[in-house]
């Protein structure tokens, strides 16, 4: 698949935003490391919402006809893309109620209930983002439950690293935040490793024989029938050399998971904590962006079987 940068930015930014917001709620409820002050909570919440909003806005850049984007909420019953939009829109007012109840010292029950609902909505929205890809039977690299699991794990991993940065800057006890980040980043790394392992094996995927129905002998493409590229070759023809894919996978693990891990140790040891926390958060985000790029670049749509691929 052709990796569209607006979609990469959108999924990484909104994933981090949703992750940050739900973890912020947990940090607030359990007063982790002493608990953030009121203004800090509100600032963190607004940053998380800004990430979500910028992500959603950038996702409209890849639309060829954005004036109809408002219609995308209408097929909630069947389309995961529609559901994602609807859930994100429900998330916004709930998040604002939560932040307002912090700001204006609302009764605890309102603060907790709105915070909890916001966190649940954040989870559902990121899950829906993953399902947009996972529900497609045409791309075997995407059609697996590991995809929403990866989207959730990476969103929460980058969110937890951003939260750690906030805790360091606010001078809280960083211990609980380090533990939380370490756990979530480790889970994200393991899930991603399982995913990369899983998609290596083509399994029961379609072949050029089932695509043409000519199953009684070997089949090969003679001519695609078009003079120059078509929409199909531009959208689905992207090919990535195996070596390059391997290199990027290594980078995802080194920058996206390894570097934040090391930086967590640095924060734990109290060595230039702010810098280390910043490096961890940036590493997490850059790693997630590379992972997302690879997620698209490695996906092989079955239409390639009509353009010469023997199997997808």
């Amino acid at each position, binding site marked *: 698949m052709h990796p569209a940068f607006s979609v990469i930015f959108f999924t990484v930014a909104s994933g981090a935003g949703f992750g940050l917001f739900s973890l912020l709620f947990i940090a607030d409820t359990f007063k982790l490391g002493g608990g953030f002050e009121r203004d800090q909570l509100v600032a963190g919440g607004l940053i998380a919402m800004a990430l979500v909003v910028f992500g959603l806005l950038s996702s409209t850049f890849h639309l*060829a006809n954005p004036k109809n984007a408002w219609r995308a909420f209408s*097929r909630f019953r069947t389309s995961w893309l529609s559901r994602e939009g609807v859930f994100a829109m429900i998330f916004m007012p709930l998040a604002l109620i939560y932040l307002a109840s912090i700001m204006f010292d609302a009764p605890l029950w309102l603060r907790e209930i709105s915070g909890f609902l916001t966190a649940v909505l954040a989870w559902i929205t990121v899950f829906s983002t993953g399902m947009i890809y996972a529900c497609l039977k045409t791309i075997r690299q995407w059609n697996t439950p590991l995809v929403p699991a990866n989207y959730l794990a990476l969103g929460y991993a980058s969110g937890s690293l951003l939260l750690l940065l906030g805790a360091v800057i606010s001078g809280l006890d960083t211990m609980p935040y380090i533990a939380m980040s370490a756990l979530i980043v480790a889970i994200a790394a393991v899930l991603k490793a399982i995913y990369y392992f899983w998609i290596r094996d083509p399994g029961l995927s379609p072949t050029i024989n089932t695509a043409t129905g000519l199953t009684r002998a070997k089949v090969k493409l003679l001519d695609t029938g078009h003079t120059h590229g078509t929409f199909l070759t531009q959208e689905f023809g992207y090919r990535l050399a195996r070596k390059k894919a391997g290199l990027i996978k290594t980078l995802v693990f080194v920058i996206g998971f390894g570097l934040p891990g090391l930086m967590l140790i640095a924060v734990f040891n109290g060595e230039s904590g702010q810098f280390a926390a910043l490096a961890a958060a940036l590493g997490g985000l850059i790693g997630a962006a590379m992972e997302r790029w690879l997620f698209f670049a490695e996906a092989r749509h079955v239409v390639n079987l009509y353009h010469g691929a023997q199997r997808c």
Partner: protein
Amino acid sequence: MRLGLVIDLDVCVGCHACAIACKEWNASGTIGPLSDYQPYGAEPSGVWFNRIRHFEMDEYPNNKTVNFPMSCNHCEDADCVTVCPTGASYKRAEDGIVLVDQDKCMGCNYCSWACPYGARELDRSSGTMKKCTLCVDRIYDQNLPVEERQPSCVLTCPAHARMFGDFDDPDSAVSRVVRERGGYGLMPELNYNPTNQYLPPRRKPVIEMSGAPKGGLKESIKQFANRLVRR
């Protein structure tokens, strides 16, 4: 009704006439235009509803060229419709034709990702998704003579490799020929239940090729003369 096409892979000569006829009709049809980019330039490209690919089956001397026209299969379980967030893509209940409402489409490409058969192409000029309409603006047109109320591609095919009809009617010509010739849908393992059916190439005996060239005086004079003549 379940309207669709039958494509006879045994007969198709790969002339691309159906694709041209399709483009001609639909460029001015309800979903037109079908934009071309650099039509006379170095890299001509554009929107087509119907594309013909060419495959080779088996190896010499049993090999056979199979010309392979493909357009929307108007699938029974069309994921392109379920994934569309705007409701622009829809499947008509009355005849099963899958269409894109050009006034609602936002050009997100998502439906083209969901189609296994490459039937959907984004028109970069209008920013909307376009695809085969089964000539919905022809087949019901009361102003046309009855025999012309068929998709453009079917009417044009000089080899009669294309048929149009109702698959819900077990006695229709398309249903019968699919039964008799073992017609099949493409990529059945994805469970889209494509309506269009393909008739497989018939098995034919291998044509014997004469082995070594004939010897003799006449042949060697011929070969000598062939070498002398400058072509």
